[in-house]
């Protein structure tokens, strides 16, 4: 079925089976890498994107249902001039990641959190990211990076 999706500020017409999860439309039709496949059942957060500014597990929601939404992937996080988002700068400053396969999902979950709560406490960050899994053990660096970005954004 053919429908229009608005991703990172641009409208795209796609033609895919109507049950196709957003993840596969982003990766295979639009060529975007930000959303990662991790579990396909909404348990790990690697595929997190923003839908109207709140976090969404792209692996479990059919794209066809998201026609009216403003969708943002990691590629859309940076400024229009290409400058990295304060979260991206902060993750690099803290060297927050090892294999970093989970990091795109962490960045998007953090972006949703900061939009809702610009100065979250450490405990609020941990709670907000509790369903985003990291296996390398980079959790504490990720928390510090989000705190750093929050401080930067509050300036």
């Amino acid at each position, binding site marked *: 079925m053919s429908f229009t999706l608005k991703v990172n500020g641009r409208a795209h017409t796609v033609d895919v089976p109507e049950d196709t999860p957003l993840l596969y439309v982003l990766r295979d039709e639009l060529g975007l890498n930000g959303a990662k496949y991790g579990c396909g059942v909404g348990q790990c957060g690697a595929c997190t994107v923003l839908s109207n500014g709140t976090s969404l597990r792209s692996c479990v929601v059919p794209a066809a249902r998201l026609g009216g939404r403003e969708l943002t992937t990691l590629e859309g996080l940076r400024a229009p001039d290409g400058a990295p988002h304060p979260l991206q700068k902060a993750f690099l400053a803290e*060297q927050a*990641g090892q294999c970093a396969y989970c*990091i795109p999902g962490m960045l998007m979950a953090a972006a949703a959190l900061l939009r809702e709560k610009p100065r979250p406490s450490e405990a609020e960050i941990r709670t907000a990211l509790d369903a985003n899994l990291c296996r390398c053990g980079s959790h504490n660096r990720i928390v510090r990076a989000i705190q750093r970005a929050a401080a930067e954004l509050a300036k």
Partner: protein
Amino acid sequence: MSTPVDRRTVLKGSLVLAFSLMGPHALGAAPRPGGLPRSLRAHPRLDAWLEISADGVVTLKTGKVELGQGVLTALGQICADELDVDFSRLTLVSGDTVRSPDEGTTAGSMSMPESGTAVRHAAAEARALLLEMAGQHLGVKASRLRVKDGLITAPGGRSVTYWSLMGGKSLNREATGTVSPKPPGERRYIGRPVPRVDLPAKVMGEPVFVQDFRSDTLVHGRVVRAPSPGASLVEVDTARVEGLPGVLKVVRDGDFLAVIATREWLAIKAAASLAETARWREQEALPVDVHAWLLEQPTQDTVIEDTPRPTDEASARTVEARYRRPYQMHGAIGPSCAVAEWDGDVLTVHSHSQSIFDTTEAIARMLRLPTDKVHGRHLQGSGCYGHNGADDAAADAALLAHALPGRAVRVQWSREDEHACEPYGSAMVMKVRAGVSDRGDVLDWDYELWSMPHGTRPGGNPGNLLAGRSRASPFRMPVPRNGGPPSYAADRNAIPLYAFPGRKVTTHFVPRMPLRVSSMRALGAYGNVFAIESFMDELAHAAGADPVDFRLRQLQDARARAVILKAAERFGWSPAPRPPGRGRGIGFARYKNLASYCAVCVEVSVDPKTRAVRVLRAVLAADAGEVVNPDGLVNQLEGGLIQSLSWSLKEAVRYDARRVLSRDWSTYPILTFSEVPPVDVALIDRPGEPFLGAGEAAQGPTAAALANAVFDATGVRVRDLPLTPERLAASGKQG
């Protein structure tokens, strides 16, 4: 330039040949004691490691691969220092079977000792060679020249660059072993927290993972997995699926069943349809109590340490205990993935394998292709922490690509595939008995362990690949073997580092494996260090001694003592009473008894009602020899500690007599953000000492520190991992 020498000739090689090559460019220094570092000895030509192009790009080639551990950054630091070029000038090629030196598997905390040392010496030799050439060019003795970022300057200011000297030619000389690397004081990059070279692209969403590989001919393959270990495919209706939209091909070869489709979602749906029509013959053969099963099996027994006590006074008491670890999984966040393309002549395989060279060879043999017609290229994947599904996914992709020429076939394992089909870390049983003195110190130490294999990597053999074993003409899986000294495998770290007067250590190796098992971060050291360090804690308690003092008074190795003292000091270890329900514990090991020293202290609280363990904080002290990148090392050690907390608090593969039941993250939960404690890592740097490798050092000490802290908090000794609330309650009842 000397005549190029066939690498194989040298490899086979006699010392005579190797030394005869030194002649033309021996540079004065004495040969390195022990000869060239291992990887450089295997690939002595400098152009195997380094290319210097006419436009000033320096390419460093390594056989080791980036797994998220930061190895490429660290190797670049070493190279930039020894070659005297800016770090930013470097390009890295890693894990390419055509371009990189074959350095075997990226595992065992060996990348810095092997590749790091080889790169250091190769770069030092290249620099010396370039200085010699510059000396002739400028008419000045090489010793009077100075180098900065490849610009060689003579007294008086005349200069020449590496790039103009090389003129695009290759460094086709053999390493001599006569050039000494720089002294520690002259290094610019080593010891500094150079940011990871691979992180920016990952944080910005650029295509860096094998999962992100794209090409014009890309199609998507999905394998339909057997529902249980050892199941065979009885029948399947392929015709129904062949007619589905987007389906290009259904491949059935014995028990191997897969589909290729134009789009990934169509491949997923087609695979689900295939799975519905497939009928499998399953067995009910899994031992539900694997620990009891281990003790009943025929074993290969090896006494790996047997030192009778020199004196014969009777011990005051004998104490014994038995410990167990379950099957645990690597649990990569990104399931395994590979892309392969067959052009009718050459098969190219992109894989996140840790053993790209051996796996490529195994794939060539699986498809009966000449080895030089299969090109393996490492692309990064999700962190693997050992032998996971990566190699099997590469074989899947290769088999499908071979069946559909001209297309790049991408095989993405599902979450369920990875959970149910990856090779696990082996369950183990450890028994220890000690005769102790009046004071409680160990006089006689008798340790036995039972374990299945910890190494079933491909090793060039298609019988070690799921696809190879599943075909109609299957390759037989070779009988696994245990690894021997000095690193060992099941018995890794089974020999205690403590100076016990009498010591005996026996390995009972069980080569059978009802569930497939292989190398998982630290191999047997996780179980062995958990057992040894838990038992040391039990002995300390029985002796009425402080656990830190008790260890120190039986430990002579000065570097071991230093990390224990450092961890205790940073932690604020004290005999002061703890609040109710709170406790602290320590664990220590030198990984493999030859790599990094690591001591871990943790503080826990245990809920009196739920028996849930909460880790409040952790401190780790490590001595990894000379530190190349302190931030990278801290990151990796902290990550290892947190992963071991996850294993030790929560993780055990669930299964019944027929099937694996841990098939997603709800049936195999891991530690989450709100459960991760603050971690403080202290490094003891040893400039000028060998790189020791640290990627696995924290796994065992963390498990023991945790169990010891739980005992300190509750008086309950849990000897079975993981330390779940149910287990605490059960252990408490047993007293």
